[in-house]
């Protein structure tokens, strides 16, 4: 790969026909850190987090009212109607994300949005999350991508979509005011759910080998009790926050907590914020984040030298994200000439759409395409997010699906001079065999399908 091709493809989201070859590929990447727009028009027009949660809330309400008035058939119809709206909003959010990725002049910065959104994954595989998944990325991730890891952590995990995805919204302190009262009245006890606490420690911050124990998970889960989502019955007397989450002190487990040897005596929500702040700057977090970033840019087996450099940058800059991006761009390990990554389905699909000047697809078709390729936005199989290594994506059926999509996209395009486009996108990195087969194609459409399916396009 040429330096330009590395900048466009490995760091960016793929070259476009109109892109000028940058004089200084590194500078072109670093300039994007200033150019990045956290709230472009197509994304600003999407429902806010508080609007996005309404579908979920109204389904809950409809169901409750239907139960109380024995009108469950009518209730089901109404739920179906709301579901359609939720589904439409989801498709719009996916399309807005796609459009931003395809049209952005700061594709390296947009790649970081995708990276962090996947690091703090929520998933529409839990249906209740569907309406809110877009708002999580747009409001919790995007504004923090050029900020600090600590702030991103706070807004990503203390968001209604995350609370619902990882069951936090119904977690209750066993000795909270509510639990004590329920016990006195002989009612069923509500209780602790440790799902969010565990995934924050394992996936978002310290990493599985980050040095915490089951006791730390439980203690952290106790500290997190009180966080829930606004608008549900248990949050009736809670303090509502602008992102649609809520703090209900009466659900919070009273007392001090000890997590990884440190004791937190704060009252209320200050306690969990203090724990988050501590783990955000923990050396294990630095290592975990550095490893994932190095893997994303320098190969599935991240070079230790680069991991160490990023780790150091993370700690010295206290989690300043642009400092990390700069360190990545300036890492020689990320500029090896041979491709180091097999593109994930999302990366490949965005690259071919950038190469062909846009999708020409409506939201539904675009989303369907992502589903068939295997990486629909905000739909990973687990809180771990989508995998970032070739062995998970380079597979027989997955490859043939890409060729089928390539044929579809080529049919929608009006590209005339495919050999020139191929040369423009990959410069001297274009293989002879690819160039030859493109030149022999029976039509520009077929030539374009070949370019989009080519080995050069599959890797970065």
């Amino acid at each position, binding site marked *: 790969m040429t330096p330009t091709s590395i900048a466009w493809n490995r760091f960016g989201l793929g070259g476009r026909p109109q892109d000028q070859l940058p004089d200084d590929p590194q500078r072109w990447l670093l300039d994007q850190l200033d150019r990045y727009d956290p709230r472009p028009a197509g994304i600003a027009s999407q429902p806010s987090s508080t609007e996005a949660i309404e579908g979920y809330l109204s389904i809950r309400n409809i169901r409750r009212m239907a139960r109380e008035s024995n009108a469950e058939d009518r209730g089901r119809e109404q739920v179906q109607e709301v579901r359609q709206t939720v589904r439409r909003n989801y498709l719009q959010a996916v399309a807005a994300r796609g459009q931003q990725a395809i049209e952005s002049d700061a594709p390296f910065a947009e790649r970081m949005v995708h990276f962090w959104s996947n690091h703090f994954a929520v998933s529409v*595989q839990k249906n209740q999350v569907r309406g809110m998944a877009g708002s999580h990325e747009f409001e919790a991730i995007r504004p923090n991508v050029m900020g600090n890891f600590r702030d991103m952590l706070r807004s990503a995990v203390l968001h209604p979509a995350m609370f619902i995805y990882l*069951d936090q919204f*119904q*977690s*209750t302190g*066993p000795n909270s005011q509510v639990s004590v009262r329920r016990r006195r009245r002989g009612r069923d*006890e*509500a*209780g*602790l*759910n*440790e*799902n969010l606490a*565990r995934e924050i420690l*394992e*996936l978002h911050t310290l990493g*599985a080998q980050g040095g915490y124990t*089951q006791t730390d*998970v439980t203690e952290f889960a106790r500290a997190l009790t009180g966080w829930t989502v606004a608008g549900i019955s248990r949050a009736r007397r809670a303090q509502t926050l602008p992102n649609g989450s809520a703090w209900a002190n009466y659900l919070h487990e009273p007392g001090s907590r000890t997590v990884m040897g440190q004791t937190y005596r704060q009252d209320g929500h200050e306690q969990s914020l203090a724990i988050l702040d501590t783990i955000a700057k923990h050396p294990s977090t630095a290592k975990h984040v550095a490893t994932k970033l190095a893997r994303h840019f320098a190969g599935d087996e991240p070079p230790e030298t680069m991991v160490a450099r990023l780790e150091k940058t993370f700690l010295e800059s206290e989690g300043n994200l642009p400092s990390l991006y700069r360190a990545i761009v300036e890492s020689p390990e990320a500029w090896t000439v041979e491709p180091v990554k097999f593109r994930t389905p999302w990366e490949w699909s965005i690259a071919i759409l950038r190469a062909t000047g846009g999708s020409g697809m409506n939201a539904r078709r675009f989303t*369907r*395409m992502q589903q*068939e390729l*295997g990486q629909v936005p905000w739909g990973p*199989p*687990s809180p*771990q997010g989508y995998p970032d290594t070739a*062995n*998970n*994506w*380079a*597979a*027989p*059926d*997955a*490859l*043939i*699906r890409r*060729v*089928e*999509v*390539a*044929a*579809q996209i080529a049919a929608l395009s009006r590209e005339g001079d495919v050999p020139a486009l191929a040369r423009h996108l990959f410069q001297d990195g274009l*293989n002879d*065999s*690819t160039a030859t*087969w493109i030149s022999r*194609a*029976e039509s520009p459409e*077929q030539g374009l*399908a*070949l370019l989009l*399916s*080519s*080995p050069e396009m*599959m890797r970065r």
Partner: protein
Amino acid sequence: MLNRRNFVLSSILAGGATLALPHKALAQAATSKRLLFVLQRGAADGLATLAPVADPQFDALRGAFAEDYDGVGLIDGLFALHPSYEKIGALFQQKQALFIQAVASSYRERSHFEGQNVIESGGAKAYSVRDGWLNRLLGLLPANDVRALALSPSIPLAMQGPQSVSSYAPTSLPGADEDLMARVGRIYESDPELGALFAEAQKTRAMAGDTQMRNLRDAEKVGGLAASLMSGADGASVMMIESNGWDSHAGQRGQFSRQARQLDALLAAYQQGMTNEWKDTLVIVATEFGRTVKLNGTNGSDHGTGSAALLLGGTVAGGKVIADWPGLRQSDLFEGRDLNPTASLESVLAGAVSGHFGLDPELAMRTLFPERTSPAAEGLIRL
């Protein structure tokens, strides 16, 4: 009072003694044999799968959930199979199903991702072995007649490795024309990785034919599809299906029933489709770990340790439960919260596949689970 009952025990018990029994020689390895591995991702609750309803602690621990087993026949005077597992129950009656209770891999922590990594890679620790135990199993089988297939677009870790594995899943994408496919194939000729993947994909697609399916959502159809891809002379000998959605942190009663019904429907259709081959078939259903014995505050259960594994098929020495029942009293539990594992999942897997394919069990254990020292379990497969 029921306590520490002695059930059918074998070397399956971690650290137990091995009985030296004759085994079929490697050379006789019968390639007509079929293996389907179903991985339940998300930690399926073994205490819901095979509920120890006669254990004195069970009702108190599981509350209303225990009602699901009312009227279900007892196995060994202790267990009841979840009623959603109708077909599996019938196979058990026909001695074509065997259940292993209180089983776990060597993993003792509670991360799904590490737990799945261990059960898929076959390492003793997460991320210590790079490829999958099913791929290493392929290396022990006669190369010429073995085809392995993942029923998904991509290849799960358990099947990743040097042996060639195909992948397939129905899609709603319109097919590309043959001329384009041929030309793409020519471009990939100069790229060994893509070339191999592409050739494999085309072969599997041709075999699947026109399924009329657009995805893998309908469990019954998936079972039928799996059978069609494993039947006949060209059928795959080894297949893996991933079953997602077992992580029941909240509202477990409904979620588990739904999941179990789906899995049961899949396996029923699979068995039906495997008409001639069923007698040579082994199905293994396993999960990364179990769930907490006690329910949590949101009518679900959290990540635990011991769970249940199921073996089904014509070669299974079925009709029994293998369990060294650890009990459910507080002092019986692992770390005071989970079902204490008394059997090794790796031993079960190695014992089952070596018996099934006629492999030397020691070689199988050593190859599939190189970091484990316990012997392969015996008595799982009809000799």
